[in-house]
């Protein structure tokens, strides 16, 4: 920064010149009579106040117009930056909190949905199993009923065959025992009577 270097060099030069002037001013003559501060016959005593007032006024003007506002601007800039950063951090934190809330809510929702899906699937499976069981029971009952019907039919048929066989056997026995043919209808009526007696 050439400006800073230049200013520094100028400042150093001014300070050195002043120091040199102060040193060249030399030591005070020895032996003042009384306090030199109260020697108001010396015009320098009052003139230092006049010059002091001028220097003080100039110093005040430079400080209040330029030097101090410069310090204030740096301090303000820093304060502004810190507050800005804090604000940004606060905003970021709010955003993060919201994101975490969203995440938590989403997770809860997802968990609830998953549970609901699971329940539905289980329910479906249970219902399906029940339907299948019912169907199977119905089929089995139908099969049982069919089998029973067939059994009854077979039994009836068997009973029918038995009557014929019994009638034939009885006719043959009667013919063999009596030696004369027996009437078919007479034999059948007797067999029927015997069968009815047996069944009862």
């Amino acid at each position: 920064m050439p400006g800073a270097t230049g200013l520094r060099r100028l400042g150093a030069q001014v300070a050195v010149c002043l120091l040199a002037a102060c040193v060249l001013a030399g030591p005070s003559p020895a032996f003042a009579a009384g306090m030199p501060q109260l020697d108001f016959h010396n015009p320098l005593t009052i003139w230092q106040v006049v010059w002091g007032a001028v220097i003080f006024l100039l110093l005040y003007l430079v400080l209040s117009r330029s030097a101090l506002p410069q310090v204030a601007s740096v301090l303000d800039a820093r304060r502004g930056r810190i507050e800005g950063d804090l604000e940004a951090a606060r905003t970021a934190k709010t955003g993060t909190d919201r994101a975490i809330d969203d995440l938590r809510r989403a997770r809860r929702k997802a968990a609830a949905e998953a549970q609901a899906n699971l329940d539905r699937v289980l329910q479906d499976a249970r219902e399906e199993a029940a339907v299948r069981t019912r169907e199977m029971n119905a089929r089995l009952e139908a099969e049982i009923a069919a089998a029973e019907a067939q059994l009854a039919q077979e039994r009836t048929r068997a009973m029918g065959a038995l009557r014929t066989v019994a009638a034939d056997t009885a006719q043959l026995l009667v013919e063999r025992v009596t030696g004369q043919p027996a009437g078919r209808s007479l034999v059948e009526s007797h067999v029927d009577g015997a069968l009815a007696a047996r069944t009862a």
Partner: protein
Amino acid sequence: MAAADNKIDALGQFELHPVLGPLGAQLHLSQSVLYMLLSSVLILLFLYLGMRPRAVVPGRFQAAAEIAYEFIYDMASDQIGHDGKRFFPFVFTLFFFILVGNYVGLIPGSFTYTSHIAVTAALALMVFFLALIVALVSQGMKFFGHFMPEGAPIAMAPLLVPIEILTFLSRPVSLSIRLFANMVAGHVMFEMFAAFTIMLGGLHLIGPVLGVAPLIVNMALMALELLVGALQAYVFAILTCIYLREATAH
């Protein structure tokens, strides 16, 4: 300049003499003025060079300048109140003009302008009249009511009012003499013990050994004077703040 003919010239160091040749003589410039100028330049250099980086995270030099600023700013705003900001540059100028004057004066061979009653009285009168004007402007005639303490019986007025007025008028006197006397005392002590060192140093063989004692005293004095220099500047500034608070209070 000291110990000539075994006499100690403790006051010679305060003597003013013309500087910078005929032009300086014509302008009535003394070394006192040069040191005021030097102090002012040092104050400005301190602030300008210190704040040059304008860094958010300050270095040591910048931190020092900022601490100086904030120290006086806090003092002015805490003590004066809502008007503190208005008087802050004045208090800052006053504090550092005195502080740097005191400290530059501690460099051996230099000059302390705050050891001159004319200078300290001028500073004190400036503060006194500033406070007076501010009080008259902000309080008007009510200001004179402060010379009668509130709640005191009227019968006491002939006694209380003169006391209060005297107290008020003695402010610039105490303010100026406090600083002046402290500076003069410190520098006279320096001169005395420095002279002792030279006188004892001249005493045959044992002299150089004995001469160390006042030298050590002077070193301790330097530490004390560093404290006194800062303390007196602080006292001057804080009393200024208190006077200004009274002046602005309604």
